[in-house]
């Protein structure tokens, strides 16, 4: 189902992930979050930006476990746990945050 962002129509797959990674801009995350009735805070953006940096470097979306460990290491132990991440992204930090970040669904994520 396509989404409307800043007057552009962007293609998404059946689960709502962007089809073309290059289509991403911050407004994409805002539009997706709005559909989920979620207000994005700085804490959300910290994770979204982290995911984009990880993808840029390794060309994959990290598994949730890897994300949790990496966040703990880079952003502090109090953030590197499922409770914190699920608090921000109730549909699952892997799935939901990766979708907002314009990345594909993490490998091995069902």
């Amino acid at each position, binding site marked *: 189902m396509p989404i409307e962002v800043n007057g552009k129509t962007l293609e998404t797959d059946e689960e709502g992930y962007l089809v073309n990674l290059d289509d991403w801009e911050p407004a994409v995350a805002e539009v997706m979050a709005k559909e989920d009735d979620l207000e994005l805070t700085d804490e959300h953006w910290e994770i979204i930006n982290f995911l984009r940096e990880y993808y840029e470097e390794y060309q994959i979306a990290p598994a949730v476990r890897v994300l949790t460990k990496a966040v703990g290491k880079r952003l502090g132990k109090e953030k590197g746990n499922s409770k914190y991440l699920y608090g921000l992204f109730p549909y699952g930090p892997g799935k939901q945050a990766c979708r907002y970040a314009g990345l594909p669904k993490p*490998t091995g994520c069902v």
Partner: protein
Amino acid sequence: MSDKKQFMFLNRRAPYGTIYAWESLEVVLIAAAFEQAVSLAFVDDGVYQLVTGQDTSGIGMKNFSPTYKTLGDYEVRHIYVDKDSLESRGLTQDDLQVVPWEDWETEETVDNIVEVVDSAKLAELLEASDVVFSF
């Protein structure tokens, strides 16, 4: 944990020409979730997967070589490269990627888990594995 199985992924194909290298990488990423002891071995044309400087912009395929660098985060503790295969292709360890590893709890680190080994050592490692996945 004593009930951990030793998984060995045996990679023998070059990247891009066939789908084997990418498929193997995907399975390795998934296998990490099962918390087993995962090792990778690169033999024959498989050694080409680890060569640095890959640039697929001209062939319209995804360059997945940067992904190997994160394997240490996916519970991969050992990456073995067959010395004979490297030598017969005019390659040395300097042509290969560096894959760091870190234990997130103890903060023990290894700068590079890529290790060039001879045939005798590799035969031993393969025999010692509980399961060998061939790609």
